[in-house]
């Protein structure tokens, strides 16, 4: 391969340079000293280097260092993140003590970017940095959850369920298929960072624009999040942190009817519909009022389902080392019970990072290794059978446990103490007793083990030129089982018990080799990285079996072979993906004022056919430090001002299946087997085409332009960061649904669609100190505007699949992805008003007196007084599907984070608020409770505020049992609500015990705190929680979303 030939030549060239290096001259001298910081005492971990050489040392725990310098002309340079660098000429001194000044500006901060680190002041791309303290401020146990509101350009939708991760989107949505950012943990690219303990993280950077991210080429288009874990430093240091607390489920829905009210509602329906019935629950409809059955309960399902749940977390770290060897070891344990009974998640992590330098600091070897073991009793979400949906759909009349016997129950006799359920009597619907089901799931098992690691070797070939080779990978493995019980209490029971058991494993690896050149020639500064990378990921397989007919339900009896009949035994083998890439980046700075950067990366992916598998992704960026120009020198309030601009391309290959290029045949028992011999209990294997191949698919490419500025003003107290961007995705991969005549094989992905995003990212920081009172505030603002520019020739829209099961109850899905609109926009009928009696007149048809719509009212199927009158969007006098319009948008206009921190003497107080503005929610729960025709539980509005002959001004339609186009079967804006919210995510008060009290017990520092998480939420949304995720092509649908809950915690951090 051509490129490798060059690489070899370069390597040989560098080798010869190494060989020609001269021998160091004598006159050596040893210097010792101590480094401290103003008001903070000794500083461990400070870099001490001899300027212009590779000689260096690091201060130990007491701030002490020892270094050998070549001679009296040497200059020692002291540097430490967060402090101003200091240079001291050695001269005749042999002891040099130094005091470093804290650097209030963040500009000196070193930011980890693609394959290298840069000073923040040198950045030309758009990079967001999340401070480590903020990552762990909200106790989520998960990095993705912690990102919310912390840096601009990142939209995070939380998931309140224990052990689940949040949805992270950087600068909007640019693909129909996959918008997950790429995570790079210690050089190992991954799509999943859930196994990383947030406490282990040293730094986290978000590469947002092409200038910063396109060095990751084909994997960069959704943004890149670079995580570096902690390293050891000289001297031994032990820290321990813990928190323990409780999570409160709150009151749950308050708008549901109780048992008596449900019965009253039935009478209202009879009255409205004029129905005569002998109701099996409440007696003849001719009675003046309903009679409750003797077994009736009055269950508050939310109260029964939820509990105050415990959460606790412990982190222990040990770090240490000397000049040549350093290590960092950490153990973490998080245990979180869910607010839903019988749910919990546990996560245990262990980390060992180490680094060794040898051969006169010329060679550095290091490794990072983490292991995570997680167990979970999870809970389904956004699904008709999920517990939270059932809170909205289980009638309150059903008791959790029977308090009286019902010998002639619908599904059989009920004894006192039996589970209650819809099988007690008819007309109770079909929703299963959620408490019973949760209890039955308590012995299910689910665990996962994940090992992530990397090792590197870094060779200093000559001053300013390094070669680094990294080999990293992950291995993961998981197991689960679940048991299905025979049920008796429900209207729809399971007749046989069954047991499902499965396991899976997977692994991936990456090999990265880079040369880095970091040189300064007078006023010219060059940082260049050239590299080669090979990746293989998605290796693995899984298997699952299910058997039924278990003689005993005992937990210890649950093995597959104990089931009398086999339901299925399946396994699948993943098709892995390989990638090879070459990349080059060069940053050039002239006089520290004019910054230029260029990147190019070439990627090849096995997901594409031989002719199209390579893509080239260039980018260019530039910066201009205006504040260093003479015309701004006199402007005293500006400390630093930099303009930035970038243009470049980034790719995405995640959208396509690894099998996309192949035309494939296959078949499963359900899809293509047939009992051709008429046995009744076996089927003969058959095949059909399962995938239509497209060897010509290629990368999705997005072209991003970014313009921004960064400024620190007013004595370095105020920081401003502002970016405007435009991101246009072309060759967007989409697998257009084929006409039915083409068959049902999976259509291949074609590069046919296009999408664009524009937005603003803004960050403001304010830091100040008034005597003992320290003050730190920041505001982060994220906006994006997403627009679908093209889907396919002749295709202007597509509707996502039935992901929340709504389509089983209502016609179609609420989301539509259409050209000219953002992804996932809500589409349906606009409710004009409710029909009134005046819209109708009576005619006698076939001898039957019939209510007929007046001719001046658009004809609508099922029209009747009190039902929805939809908007006649095309004004043709008939209401039909063409009258549907876009009725809402789940994309927020902007999201924002507001961070406040005060310190006063030993106290600290921090608060973090997060908000989302201008997003709509399709409230599926409202459908559940707003129509008497549906299953189960109903809402108060339906009984008290619905349309009746005497309440014609109502907006809630008439309570009726008629299911028609005009009642509940269509998607309309009746179910849409404003989902804007502002939430107090975190409020924390801490106290640091004064040092003089601790020194006697060998404790270096001790801080205790109390904390409230999700203390309050300001919103108009009527559901449990306005923070709702979902698939990118159909999000913002609240189909029983699990709420984020309040937590109250106590914690402490101690270091020895």
């Amino acid at each position, binding site marked *: 391969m051509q490129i490798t030939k060059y690489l070899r030549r370069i390597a040989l060239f560098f080798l010869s340079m190494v060989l020609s290096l001269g021998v160091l001259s004598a006159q050596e001298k040893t210097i010792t000293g101590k480094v401290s910081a103003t008001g903070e005492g000794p500083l461990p971990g400070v870099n001490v280097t001899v300027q212009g050489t590779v000689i260096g040392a690091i201060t130990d725990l007491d701030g002490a260092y020892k270094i050998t310098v070549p001679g009296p002309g040497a200059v020692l340079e002291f540097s430490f993140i967060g402090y101003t660098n200091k240079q001291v000429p050695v001269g005749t001194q042999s002891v040099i003590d130094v005091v470093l000044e804290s650097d209030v500006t963040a500009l000196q901060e070193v930011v980890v970017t693609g394959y290298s680190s840069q000073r923040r002041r040198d950045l030309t791309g758009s990079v967001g940095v999340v401070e480590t303290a903020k990552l762990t401020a909200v106790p989520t146990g998960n990095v993705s959850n912690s990102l919310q509101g912390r840096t601009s350009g990142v939209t995070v939708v939380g998931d309140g369920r224990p052990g689940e991760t949040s949805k992270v989107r950087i600068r909007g949505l640019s693909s129909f298929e996959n918008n997950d950012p790429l995570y790079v943990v210690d050089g190992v690219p991954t799509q999943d960072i859930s196994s990383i303990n947030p406490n282990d993280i040293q730094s986290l950077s978000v590469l947002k624009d092409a200038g910063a991210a396109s060095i990751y080429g084909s994997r960069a288009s959704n943004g890149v999040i670079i995580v570096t874990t902690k390293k050891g430093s000289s001297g031994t240091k032990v820290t321990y942190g813990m928190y323990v607390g409780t999570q409160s489920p709150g009151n749950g829905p308050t708008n549901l009817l109780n048992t008596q009210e449900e019965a009253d509602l039935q009478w209202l329906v009879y009255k409205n519909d004029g129905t005569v019935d002998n109701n099996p629950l409440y007696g003849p409809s001719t009675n003046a009022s309903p009679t409750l059955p003797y077994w009736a309960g009055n269950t508050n399902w939310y109260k029964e389902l939820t509990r105050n749940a415990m959460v606790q977390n412990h982190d222990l770290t040990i770090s240490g080392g000397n000049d040549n060897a350093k290590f960092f070891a950490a153990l973490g344990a998080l245990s979180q019970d869910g607010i839903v009974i019988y749910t919990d998640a546990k996560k245990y992590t262990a980390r060992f990072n180490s680094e060794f330098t040898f051969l006169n600091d010329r060679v550095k070897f290091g490794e990072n290794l983490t292991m995570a073991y997680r167990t979970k009793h999870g809970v389904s979400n956004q699904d008709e059978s999920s517990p939270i949906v059932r809170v909205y759909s289980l009638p309150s009349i059903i008791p959790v446990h029977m308090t009286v016997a019902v010998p002639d129950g619908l599904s059989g006799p009920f004894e006192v103490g039996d589970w209650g359920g819809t099988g007690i009597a008819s007309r109770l619907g079909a929703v299963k007793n959620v408490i019973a089901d949760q209890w039955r799931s308590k012995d299910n098992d689910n665990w996962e083990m994940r090992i992530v690691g990397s090792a590197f070797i870094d060779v200093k070939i000559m001053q300013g030129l390094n070669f680094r080779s990294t080999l990293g990978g992950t291995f993961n493995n998981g197991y689960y089982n679940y048991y299905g019980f025979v049920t008796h209490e429900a209207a729809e029971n399971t007749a046989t018990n069954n047991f499902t058991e499965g396991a899976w494993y997977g692994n991936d690896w990456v090999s990265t080799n880079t040369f880095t050149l970091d040189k300064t020639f007078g006023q010219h500064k060059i940082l260049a990285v050239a590299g080669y990378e090979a990746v293989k990921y998605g290796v693995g397989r899984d298997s699952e079996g299910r058997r039924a007919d278990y003689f005993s339900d005992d937990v210890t009896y649950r093995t597959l072979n104990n089931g009398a009949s086999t339901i299925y035994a399946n396994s699948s083998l993943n098709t892995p993906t390989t990638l090879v890439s070459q990349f080059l980046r060069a940053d050039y700075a002239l006089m520290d004022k004019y910054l230029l950067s260029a990147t190019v990366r070439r990627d090849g992916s096995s997901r594409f056919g031989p002719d199209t598998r390579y893509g080239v992704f260039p980018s260019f960026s530039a910066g201009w430090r205006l504040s260093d120009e003479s015309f701004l020198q006199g402007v005293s309030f500006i400390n630093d001002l930099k303009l930035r601009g970038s243009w470049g391309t980034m790719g995405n290959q995640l959208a396509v299946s690894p099998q996309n290029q192949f035309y494939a045949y296959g078949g499963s028992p359900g899809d293509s087997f047939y009992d051709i011999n008429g046995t009744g209990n076996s089927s003969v294997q058959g095949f059909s085409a399962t995938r239509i191949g497209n060897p010509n698919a290629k990368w999705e490419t997005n072209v991003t332009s970014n313009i921004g500025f960064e400024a620190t003003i007013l004595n370095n107290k105020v920081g401003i960061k502002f970016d405007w961007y435009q991101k246009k995705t072309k060759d967007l991969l989409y697998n257009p649904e084929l006409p039915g005549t083409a068959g049902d094989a999976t259509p291949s992905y074609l590069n046919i669609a296009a999408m664009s995003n524009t937005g603003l990212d803004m960050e403001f920081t304010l830091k100040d100190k008034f005597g003992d009172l320290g003050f730190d505030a920041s505001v982060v603002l994220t906006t994006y505007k997403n627009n679908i520019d093209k889907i396919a020739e002749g295709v202007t829209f597509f509707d996502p699949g039935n992901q929340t099961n709504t389509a089983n109850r209502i016609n179609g899905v609420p989301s539509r992805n259409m050209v000219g609109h953002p992804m996932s926009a809500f589409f349906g009928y606009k409710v004009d008003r409710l029909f009134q009696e005046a819209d109708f007149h009576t005619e006698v048809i076939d001898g039957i007196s019939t209510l007929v719509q007046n001719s001046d009212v658009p004809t609508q199927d099922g029209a009747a007084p009190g039902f929805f009158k939809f908007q006649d969007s095309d004004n043709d006098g008939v209401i*039909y599907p063409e009258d549907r319009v876009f009725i809402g948008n789940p994309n927020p206009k902007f999201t924002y984070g507001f961070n406040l921190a005060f310190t006063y003497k030993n106290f600290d107080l921090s608060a973090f608020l997060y908000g989302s503005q201008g997003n709509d929610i399709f409230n599926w729960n409202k459908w559940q409770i707003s129509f008497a025709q549906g299953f189960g539980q109903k809402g108060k509005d339906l009984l008290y505020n619905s349309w009746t002959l005497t309440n014609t001004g109502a907006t809630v339609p008439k309570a009726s049992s008629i299911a028609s186009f005009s009642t509940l079967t269509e998607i309309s804006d009746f179910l849409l609500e404003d989902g804007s919210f502002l939430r107090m995510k975190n409020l924390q008060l801490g106290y640091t015990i004064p040092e003089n009290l601790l020194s006697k017990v060998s404790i270096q520092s001790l801080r205790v705190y109390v904390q409230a998480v999700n203390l309050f939420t300001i919103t108009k949304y009527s559901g449990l929680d306005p923070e709702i995720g979902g698939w990118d092509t159909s999000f913002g649908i609240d189909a029983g979303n699990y709420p984020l809950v309040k937590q109250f915690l106590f914690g402490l951090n101690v270091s020895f």
Partner: protein
Amino acid sequence: MKKKYIIILLILAVIGTWNSCKSDFLDIKPAGVLDQSVLANAKGIDAVLIGCYSLLDGWSISDVTWGPQTSNWVYGSIRGLEANKGTTAADQPEINPIQTYSETASNGYLNQKWRLCYEGVSRCNSLIVIANSALADGKIDQAEADMYIMQARALRGWYHFEAWRMWEKIPYLDETTDAATVDNEIDARPMIIADLEEGVKLLTNMGAVGRFNKTVSQVFLGKAMMQMYHDYAGALPILQAASTGTKPDGSPIGLAPTYGEIFDIENRNKIEAILTVQYSVNDGSGGANGGYGEVLNFPYKGGGSPGGCCGFFSPSQEFVNSFRTSGGLPLLDNSYNDDPVKNDLGVVKAPLDEPDPFVRDQGPLDPRLDWSVGRRGIPYWDWGPHTGADWVRDQTIDGPYSPKKQVYKKSQEGVYTEVGNWTSGYTANGYRMIRYADLLLLIAECQIETNDLVNAQININKIRARAANSAGWVKMPDGTNAANYQIAQYTTPFADKAFAEKALYMERKLELGQEGHRWFDLNRWGITVTELNRALNYERTMQWGDVLYGQSTVGTEDVTYPIPQRQIDLSNGKLTQNR
């Protein structure tokens, strides 16, 4: 020394880089799937052919619910007003407009049915392509190729015919058609006939009961000629030839001795069934091969009645009333509605150990009623007497009746039903797509239309004679008849063609009711609008009828379903709407 280390390290790094850059590193074979070339031999082609047959059961294509059902309980029976949707108002709402004759082109059920039919066509076409390539490569001989291709063409004819019955103006695709450019302007009927004629060349004994054979193909051909061309004279000899044929496994065909036994799962492949769609359970498909399309259609009483779910497919009162007899003969003037069969609406169940307060209908009834419909007090297979309201999900919406023909026996649970699933409604009770009585009545219809009233009457009487075999009537535990069954044959010769037609139309309703034929039959007879409006006007006067049917009427456009809008959109303007 130190330099040596560095050199070694660098060399190792470069070698590592070199190794991972081998040119085949990016060539990854797809895992777990087959390439077409692996299938181009006798064994592979037969497996692909099984894939063609496997869609006969209506399952599966991606993202489907119950729309592609093979028994046409929605499109034939509910649309033909033999039954209503049942269950609750908000369950499977796409059926609501189909039963009120107000469905739009965007109805999801219709799109599912369309996609299933054409996935069937597509599978048959790929079989033909693979078989031809195997023949060209010498992997199979001409006779083998013919056997495969004739089956595939017969199946392709059937899938197209099913689509034609729904939409009429349909695209036709053979193995050379480009799906991206096909339109529906060309009359598909001649090609459908040609494909079915290919099937007639098959052997009568195909060695497996689930395959198409000569007899099966003859029935489909005759039926297609009647339905598409009203070519009764042409269809008659073909159907008559079929009546002396065999089942696909070579076993004999004929009328089962009694009516009720036909619907017992045990008998699904016995003498009456010319072609049964083969359902299988506990075969590792997780229920998907167990009649997925019909899984909802069981009475609704968890644990106490069959299936456990979901209370769909409730027979209509108008249908039940049709079984009223007078002198053992049906009331061909539809006056049966003047003496409706008594139902238990609003009569609550008796407390335990007390007699049922509901007094059953005492009038004369055709005995086939109680095999077609579950009604209160009548033994329901071996599940004990149907208990009325508490077996029905919600009588105010469903009416008082339950479906019965596809319901399994209590003694068959776990044997002919899927175990370990959410419902036991996955059964091996394969849909009797062609049964002998259907064939006899098709022959009688051709005879009437070609003015052979005498033989038509003989054939109709054969059906009635079998129904009159009292050994097959529903009996109470004490052995007495469950109702006042009275049935006789037509003894007076049919007066004229009009009368004969009426007798035949009624006989199909009584004999083949709830089996998915009604609306298609009405279309063939050209009486859809008048007959359904008549029935609708009656059904609407029922307690549940007003809630269900509201102001709906049947119009002239309701003799087809609209072509799915989604398909018109996807065709890029090639397909045009049929109405």
